[in-house]
């Protein structure tokens, strides 16, 4: 008995044996599983080989290197570039603060973030830009430290939390005012990945409140309001976004008198916001239905008015319940901003297409497209991971 035990521990300790046992349990238990494993190994090796060969041998990344500006900023004027930095610092500081307050921080996270910082630094063309970005990183680290410091000071913590939430709400208006205002850059000149980011930001900043309003009016008992918002939601959701964008870009201008014509990009932004609003409305409606009826009755019994019940009792619970779906919608919006490439605007995708259509870079579609796809993937993947983390911290779905 005793002997067997010591033997067991000895086997446990040997890493090779452990690996062998693990492989037997997870990869080679039974004939079908072994066949599956062998097929997958072949597939995995093939994938890794093709990818590695492409990245390090086959691909010529010069086209991306030369056209960085086109892909990231499009036709955005160089001398107005400073306007992008303050909102970016704000995002980094708020990100650090939120991270510090929500999580202890793990080595794995730091490794990922570090890799991202190195990647971005490698991409910034000039030393000035590198230093400006480095400043943002320092700011983020300081904010993270501040967030950690408040862990055992609940009073400061609750105030800081308020500041963070208000900050997140202000960041999009701040960015747009700083970029457009004070003799800034008109939306027609926004371009590259910046255009995609701003489109998604405006879409969510307008679409979220609009969607909540639509959902609330759909849930009322007033027939006219209810019918109106239901019609808007269903008609908007009835067709694909690209059809709406084509209408806004090429059809509507024909029906609007010249005096009321707006910039095509502004029209398209309005369409994207409306479209997002309709989808958000349906998500929020689901959340509203999930709020227990007793909540409203209890609040009514306490003498709260309809407005107070809706804003302070129903909505917070409804939205909390649908945060995952809202994040999915944000990710969908982020990916949908690529549609602007086919409406004649220079977003990251069409900037990339312009890059590989240059005579000097004939046949380099794959490098450019893979790079642009990677940019979109990184943001979308990051968002989905963040939302999962957020859900765990808030305890959504855990009862």
């Amino acid at each position, binding site marked *: 008995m005793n002997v067997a035990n010591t033997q067991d521990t000895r086997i446990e300790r040997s890493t090779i044996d452990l690996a062998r046992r693990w492989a037997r349990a*997870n*990869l080679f*238990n039974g004939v*079908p*599983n072994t066949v*599956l*494993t062998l097929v*997958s*190994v072949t*597939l*995995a090796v093939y994938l890794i080989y093709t990818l590695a060969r492409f990245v390090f041998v086959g691909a010529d990344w010069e086209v991306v290197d030369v056209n960085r500006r086109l892909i990231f900023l499009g036709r955005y004027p160089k001398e107005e570039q400073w306007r992008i930095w303050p909102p970016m610092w704000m995002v980094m500081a708020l990100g650090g603060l939120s991270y510090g307050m929500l999580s202890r921080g793990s080595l794995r996270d730091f490794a990922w973030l570090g890799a991202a910082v190195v990647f971005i630094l490698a991409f910034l063309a000039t030393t000035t830009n590198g230093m400006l970005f480095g400043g943002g990183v320092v700011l983020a680290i300081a904010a993270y430290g501040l967030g950690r410091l408040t862990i055992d000071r609940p009073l400061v913590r609750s105030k800081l939390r308020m500041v963070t939430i208000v900050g997140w709400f202000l960041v999009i208006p701040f960015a747009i005012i700083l970029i457009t205002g004070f003799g800034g850059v008109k939306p027609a000149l926004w371009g590259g990945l910046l255009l995609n980011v701003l489109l998604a930001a405006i879409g969510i900043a307008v679409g979220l409140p609009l969607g909540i309003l639509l959902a609330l009016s759909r849930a009322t008992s007033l027939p006219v309001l209810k019918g109106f918002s239901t019609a808007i939601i269903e*008609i908007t959701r*009835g*067709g*694909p*976004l*690209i*059809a709406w964008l*084509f*209408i806004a870009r*090429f*059809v509507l*201008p*024909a*029906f609007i008198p010249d005096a009321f014509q707006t910039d095509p990009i502004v029209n398209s932004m309005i369409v994207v916001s409306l479209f997002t609003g309709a989808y958000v409305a349906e998500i929020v409606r689901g959340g509203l239905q999930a709020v227990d009826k007793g909540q409203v009755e209890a609040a009514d019994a306490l003498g709260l008015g309809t407005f107070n019940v809706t804003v302070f009792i129903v909505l917070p619970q409804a939205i909390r319940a649908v945060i995952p779906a809202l994040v999915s919608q944000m*990710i969908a919006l982020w*990916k*949908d901003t*690529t*549609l602007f*490439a*086919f409406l004649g605007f220079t977003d990251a*995708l069409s900037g990339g*297409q312009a890059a590989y259509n240059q005579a000097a870079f004939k046949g380099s*579609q*794959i490098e450019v*497209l*893979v790079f*642009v*796809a990677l940019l*979109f*993937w990184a943001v*979308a*993947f990051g968002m*989905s991971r963040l939302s999962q983390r957020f859900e765990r911290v808030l305890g959504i779905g855990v009862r």
Partner: protein
Amino acid sequence: MVDKARDLDDLGFDFLSGSGDFPLSTQWLTNYESNDTLLGAYGAGIFNTVRLVVIGIVLATVLGVLAGIARLSSNWLVAKLATLYVETIRNTPLLIQIVIWYTVVFLQLPRVENAIEYSGLFYLSVKGLALPSLTIDGSFGIWVFFLVLGAVAAFALQWWLHRNEEQEGGSKHAVAWAFLVFTVVAVVTYFLTGTPLEPDTPHVVITGANIYNVKGGIQVEPEFAAVLLGLVIYTGAFIAEIVRGGIQALPKGQTEAAAALGLSGYQRLTLIILPQALRIIIPPLTNQFLNLTKNSSLAVVIGYPEIIFVGNTMINKIGHAAPVYLMIFGTYLLLSLVISLSMNFFNRSVQLAGR
């Protein structure tokens, strides 16, 4: 792009009986000619959208179910590969994926004279994929009649064996027997009616100096192939997540109880897990089908003539933007309704009865 005066004059649909005088790049089963009416052009557009959506839904469901099950596989490597697939594809814009499939894969294929081929069975070239097809002759109707008879007989046999199985226990291989009966009937009557199907294999023809074309069989255009591949792989990743969620929502006891009864892994999956998971899966699956339908519109960016492409061409040629877009939205509405209604019908048949 749009002539304002012409547009505001006429909001009716009379213009559809005129001709737009433009060609469409695909001809598969549509027979549209450039001097046909605009209604004919739009009809071809509807057909092109519908074939994309129908084939796309079937393939995406198959891929999604397989990938969803693979993500929960006890085989570590299989699960990781499926996760890699889902997380890469789901977080990349579909539009970029379609553009990649089209410009990086299908437009880089060899020219027709150097096509990748397999002994006349298929030709894969920059003009697309050509596959063999079958042409029908006079006695086809008689053969179909026998096929229907065979199918009825097979179903009857399966029902009878299945009832026996339930009463007496043990497996009577009902499905296998039914399949066998149907196959025998089909093969025997095929030769009795004098082989009513003629194979039509694709072949390369030279139509001019150094102009090569593939004729015969089914021609899958590169645009269609690129969009279909993009839609299937993208939607499949979302369906995989739905399937995984549906399976994980089941209590673990279901699998354990099935294992305790001695059911094999395949039986557990097909008889116990999937039928129950289906109840959770169908509503979000319907949503994905609707998304696929709307996403099929992205085909317009690589010039596949689906309804928005045809509509935009019509507007370019003769205006009438408002009625054209009304038609486009009507078509999407109709497609969505058909999908929703049939899925609701299907949903009702798998839900728990009573309660």
